[in-house]
Each structure stands twice: as structure tokens, then as C-alpha cells.
């Protein structure tokens, strides 16, 4: 219903109420008239008393009346004879309404004395009609201006106003009540709707919901929960929650656990093993809160969410197993690594020891070689001197002793030489090197000598001190200094051989450096007549030399050893009346 209609109804109702109250007022007015009359009786009595003071008989004429008029203050008394003064006259005199006149006439007929309230121009008057005893047709009429009457009417008006006010207030309150009631109804409807909606959510949620009471009885369970545990709602509701647990012991532990947690406020994501209707054990993640947090949770409902996380737990277990396995592997690898590092450290320590021995041996070999040199030399001289001894047997004996001494000294020299080799182990690191560059370096070093022996051609160009080191690029990863030593040895050997034959103009040394699929190839080719076939097979063996004097015969063997260390190969052969030394070095990957 619209507000307009409601207020119209309320207005009509108020008018009706007003009318009803007016009627009641009318009744109250009549009753007031009666009270008024009673007071007038008393008043009448006082008039009688007053009259008696002056007259023995209650018979008085007009003059008496006039006289009395002056004796009673505050009131006007008139005496009139109906024959003389008619009611019509009074009507005209006081402008009475026809209704009033009729009422008075009726009163005159009915009763002896009466009063009548009249509203005249001047205000409200109490008109009292007193029938004279001696003159039944005569009435003493008193018009007395009545404040009381006025007050009564004002009061009546006031009462009326108050009533109207009360009615308005009441109607307003009624309206308020109606509105409140409507609001309540509306809210009730909303709540009902919300409840319905909540129930819908509760029932269709993709997580299990469970409401249990203080006795652990299931009050409510949603479809998801029922599905997870394999029950119907009817089978769950009203049952104790132990139905969901695998054993009474497990249930007791659960109760103990959640009681502790709920005391702290809530249960959050607790994992627990529970049981389905078909006795299959499942892992559940449960969270619970008291329905009314103000209340002690033991006294009220608790709301639970439950989710089957069996698959998740299984996955986690797999991951955990894998993690453990990985951890184990890591530990194992770390242990191995530690062992390797330890071994490496030990090896390093050994290297340091060897290095120390090497360094030491450098000093030792020097210190021992020095006396060995003059022992050996002097022995040699002694042996020569012994040739001059005339006594043949003594000479033979002394030479034999000397030879023994020389053998012993030679053995010592061999041991010292081995120590020296050990001390010469290189500590250089391998790096990408341009082989062409190293060849130019070696040729520069040999130039002092080669300039007197022959011309040298490097990649078909005559070598001079101005030859560029970067004209060709053949990169290998190796120890630069070592490879330079190899070139020096090979070049010097070639120069030694060339020196033996021909003239400067006839002699040639050609060096070619090029790259094939796998190797950097360096070819040294001279025209010195080549290497004796006997020697060729063992040319890289130590102490093999073609030189008649001076050469130690170790150059090429050391060179071969160096090349092996640099992943290189060296070959020697004869070609076009000269010797060829061909070196192949693994080229660097680009």
C-alpha cells in the first residue's frame, strides 16, 4: 500500500475518532450541566435565605425583587410575569437561539427551578430560572456571567485539542508500528531468502560442510561431504562424528586435538586420516570454528569444512620420496666430490712435494755435478797419466781401479741426470697459439746462426727478421714455449746437417705451415742429403745422433716427448734428397 493511501486512511480514521471523542464530550457536557444545577440549588437556597432575612413570607413583588437585586452582589436578578415579560421578549432581549428558547420552554414546563447555560454576545451565562412559590407562573431569572462555564468550555476545547493531539500521536505511532511491522516482515522475508540462498550455497559448495552440536552429533552435512564420505544425508544427520573415524582411539585423539585447537580459537587445515562408509581410509584436511564465537564452543555448534586430500597427500609423499632420494643423491655427490677434492688436494700436495723435490734436485744436481765434473775429469787425466807408468802390472792394476772408479762416477752421473729431467717438468698452461707466430720466433732465435748457413723459406717466402708473425693463422691450444723449443731443435738439427754439405747458395731449408681438416701441419724440409736409413728408424730415441761431435742426441727425443704432451705427432722421412720433419698438431675448434 502506498503512503498516500495509508495517510488518507489514517486521516479518515482520525476524523472518525475526533467525532467519536466529540460525542463523548457531549455526554460529558450534559453531565456537567447536572453538576451545575446542583450548585444552583445551593445558590437558590442562598437566595431564599437572603429573602427570608427581609421578608417573613416568600412572597415578593417587583419592588422586592429590585431590592433583592441590590443585596446580592455579582448577580442580576429579574422578575418578570409571563404575562408581562414573555420568553419571546427575553429571546429578543438576549438574542437567544430558537433551540435555546425551545429548551428553556421545555424546562419551564418540566421543572420548578432550573439553570441553563447560554452563550450570549458577552460570553457564557448561567441562566437560572427560579419559580416563585407565590406566583407559580413567575420565574425569577438570574443571568450570571459564568467564568466557570467559560473555563469548562475552554477546558473542553483544550481536552479536545489534547485528544486530537493524542489521536495524532497515536496515529503517528500506529503508523510507525505499521511501518516497523512491515519492515520486520520485509526483513524476515529477506532473511528467509538469504537463508534459502545460504542453504543453496551450503549444499552445493565444492567443499564438505559439516555442522555438529556440542555432543558431537551431526546437525547438518552438505552434498559434497556426503559424497566424500560415501554416505547419504539421512545416514549422517543425527549420528555421532565417530562414524567418520577409523577407530575409537583415532576418534579420541581427534577430539583431544580439536578441543585444544578450538580453545585457542579455531582449527585450521588439520590433516587427519578418516574413513569412508566403504571403510576406505582417506586423508582429510579439516578446518573448524565455533558457530557463535561469543559462546563457549563446548556449549554450541561448530562448523567444519572437510576436504578429501588423499590424492594430494599421495602426490606429496611421492614428491617427498623424490626429494629424499635427491637429497640422498646430493649428499652422495657431495661426499664423492669431497673425496675427489681430497684426492685432488692430495695429488696437489704430491705435486707440491714433487715440485719441492724438483727444486731441491736442481740444487742437488748442481752441487753434485760440480764435484762429479772434476772427479770424473781428474780420473780421466789420471788414467792418461798412468799410461806413462813403466811397471806394466802396476799400470794395469791402476788403470783397472781407475776404470772401476769411472764406472762408479758414471752411475752417479746417470742418477743425477734422471733427477734433472724430473726437475724440468713444465708448469706452463696451454693456450690458443698461432703456430706460424711460434715458427717466426724460432727462426729469429736461429737467425744468428742460419744467416751463415742457408736461406730459409717460410710458406714459400724467404725468412728475414722483418717477416710478419701474423701473416698466417694456424691456431692450436698448447704450451707456446714448449713448441718453440721443438722448432729450435728441428731447425738447429737441419742447420747442422746442411752445414756439412754444399755452399750457402746450394743449401735450402723450407718450412711450410698449413691447416688441413684436423691438424695444423708444419713441414721442415732441407736438401742436406737426408737421414741415414739406419738412424731414421730410431731418430726419436734418446742419445741417437748423426753428429760426430758435441750433440747430446737428446734434442729430437725431447721434442717428441714435448709434442706428445701437446697432442702432436712427429714424423721423419727422406724426400727429394733431403730430410723431412713433419709435425701435426690438433687444431683448435673455432
Amino acid at each position, binding site marked *: 500500500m502506498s503512503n498516500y493511501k495509508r495517510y488518507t486512511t489514517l486521516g479518515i480514521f482520525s476524523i472518525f475518532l475526533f467525532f467519536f471523542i466529540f460525542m463523548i464530550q457531549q455526554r460529558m457536557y450534559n453531565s456537567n450541566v447536572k453538576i451545575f444545577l446542583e450548585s444552583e440549588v445551593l445558590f437558590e437556597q442562598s437566595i431564599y435565605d437572603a429573602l427570608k432575612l427581609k421578608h417573613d413570607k416568600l412572597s415578593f413583588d417587583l419592588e422586592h425583587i429590585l431590592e433583592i437585586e441590590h443585596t446580592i452582589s455579582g448577580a442580576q436578578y429579574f422578575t418578570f410575569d409571563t404575562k408581562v415579560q414573555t420568553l419571546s421578549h427575553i429571546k429578543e432581549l438576549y438574542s437567544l437561539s430558537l433551540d435555546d428558547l425551545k429548551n428553556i420552554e421545555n424546562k419551564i414546563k418540566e421543572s420548578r427551578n432550573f439553570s441553563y447555560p447560554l452563550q450570549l454576545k458577552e460570553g457564557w451565562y448561567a441562566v437560572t430560572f427560579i419559580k416563585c412559590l407565590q406566583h407559580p407562573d413567575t420565574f425569577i431569572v438570574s443571568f450570571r456571567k459564568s467564568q466557570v462555564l467559560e473555563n469548562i468550555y475552554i477546558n473542553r476545547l483544550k481536552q479536545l485539542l489534547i485528544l486530537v493531539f493524542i489521536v495524532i500521536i497515536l496515529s503517528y505511532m500506529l503508523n510507525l508500528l505499521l511501518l516497523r511491522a512491515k519492515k520486520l516482515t520485509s526483513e524476515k522475508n529477506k532473511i528467509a531468502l538469504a537463508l534459502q540462498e545460504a542453504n543453496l550455497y551450503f549444499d552445493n559448495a565444492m567443499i564438505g560442510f559439516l555442522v555438529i552440536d556440542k555432543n558431537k552429533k551431526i546437525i547438518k552435512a552438505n552434498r559434497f561431504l556426503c559424497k566424500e564420505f560415501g554416505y547419504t544425508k539421512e545416514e549422517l544427520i543425527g549420528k555421532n562424528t565417530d562414524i567418520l573415524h577409523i577407530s575409537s582411539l583415532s576418534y579420541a585423539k581427534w577430539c583431544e586435538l580439536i578441543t585444544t585447537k578450538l580453545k585457542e580459537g579455531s582449527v585450521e587445515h588439520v590433516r587427519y586420516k578418516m574413513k569412508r562408509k566403504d571403510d576406505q581410509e582417506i586423508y582429510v584436511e579439516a578446518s573448524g570454528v565455533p558457530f557463535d564465537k561469543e559462546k563457549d564452543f563446548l556449549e554450541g555448534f561448530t562448523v567444519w569444512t572437510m576436504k578429501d586430500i588423499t590424492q594430494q597427500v599421495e602426490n606429496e609423499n611421492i614428491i617427498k620420496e623424490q626429494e629424499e632420494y635427491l637429497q640422498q643423491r646430493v649428499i652422495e655427490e657431495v661426499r664423492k666430490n669431497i673425496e675427489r677434492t681430497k684426492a685432488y688436494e692430495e695429488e696437489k700436495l704430491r705435486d707440491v712435494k714433487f715440485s719441492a723435490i724438483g727444486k731441491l734436485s*736442481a740444487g742437488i*744436481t*748442481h*752441487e753434485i*755435478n*760440480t*764435484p*762429479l*765434473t*772434476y*772427479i*770424473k*775429469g*781428474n780420473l*780421466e*787425466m789420471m788414467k792418461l797419466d798412468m799410461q806413462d807408468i813403466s811397471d806394466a802390472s802396476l799400470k794395469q792394476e791402476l788403470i783397472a781401479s781407475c776404470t772401476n772408479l769411472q764406472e762408479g*762416477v758414471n752411475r752417479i*752421473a746417470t742418477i743425477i741426470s734422471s733427477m*734433472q729431467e724430473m726437475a*724440468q717438468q713444465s708448469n706452463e698452461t696451454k693456450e690458443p697459439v698461432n703456430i706460424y707466430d711460434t715458427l717466426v720466433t724460432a727462426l729469429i*732465435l*736461429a737467425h*744468428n*746462426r742460419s744467416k751463415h748457413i742457408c736461406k730459409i723459406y717460410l710458406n714459400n717466402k724467404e725468412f728475414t727478421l722483418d717477416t710478419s708473425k701474423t701473416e698466417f693463422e694456424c691456431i692450436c691450444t698448447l704450451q707456446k*714455449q714448449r713448441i*718453440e*723449443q721443438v722448432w*729450435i731443435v728441428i731447425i*738447429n738439427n737441419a742447420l747442422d746437417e746442411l752445414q756439412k754439405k754444399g755452399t750457402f747458395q746450394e743449401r735450402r731449408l723450407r718450412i711450410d705451415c698449413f691447416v688441413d681438416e684436423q691438424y695444423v701441419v708444419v713441414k721442415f724440409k732441407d736438401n742436406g742429403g737426408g737421414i741415414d736409413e739406419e738412424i731414421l728408424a730410431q731418430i726419436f730415441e734418446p742419445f741417437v745422433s748423426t753428429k760426430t*761431435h*758435441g750433440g*747430446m742426441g737428446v734434442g729430437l727425443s*725431447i721434442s717428441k716427448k714435448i709434442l706428445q704432451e701437446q697432442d702432436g705427432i712427429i714424423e721423419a722421412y727422406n724426400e727429394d734428397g733431403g730430410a723431412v720433419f713433419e709435425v701435426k698438431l690438433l687444431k683448435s675448434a673455432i
Partner: protein
Amino acid sequence: MKNIVIIDDEVEIASMIEKFLSKSGNYHVKSFHNPLVALEHIQDDVDVVLLDIMMPQMGGLEVLQKLKQKYPQIHIIMMTAYSTLDKVLDSHRYGAVHYLMKPFKSLGEISAKIEEITR
């Protein structure tokens, strides 16, 4: 007569070589035990210098450089009781004609080498 100079801080070795070479009668031999003194006394008439590498006063390689700088025509044979390939190469680079390892295979090796290079 070829003028030979021996420079070696080891008195015994220097004396021994001196004695051996002198004995042959082909050489005029003089030995020094201090390379600094040797550098002062060596003249351009010297044919061959037998020079030790490790000496306390001055290293043989330095003496080699100084001598070659002053008298490039002098043939210098290096001697050492402890050698590395590097030292051999360096000696060669600075102009030494030969390199003898101590202890010598035989003393004859020295005279043979002197003969070879002074031929």
C-alpha cells in the same frame, strides 16, 4: 796457439780444464774464478771462452751477453752442472756456439769442440 779463457767459480773444475788443455800444448789457457775480473782482463785476442752459467758474482748468460757485445768474434762455449732447455735456448739466442753439460762425457769432448768451432 789458441787463446782459451775459462770462467768458472769452481776452482777445481777451472784448474782441471786448464791443466788438461795446457797439457796438449795447443792452447794458451787462462782461468778466472770471478766473472767480473774475467770481463776486465779478456782481450780481443781470445779465441774461445769456456763459460760456466751459474756463478755467484754474475750469471753466465749475462757474462755471455757482455762478452758478445764487446767481442762478437769470440766463440763462447757454455758449461753448466744443471741445465734446462730454456737456458740452452737462451744461450743459443745470445750467441753461444755450444753448450756442455757437466759432468763432461770426457775431457776430450772439450778439446774436440774447441777444435770444431775454431777450425
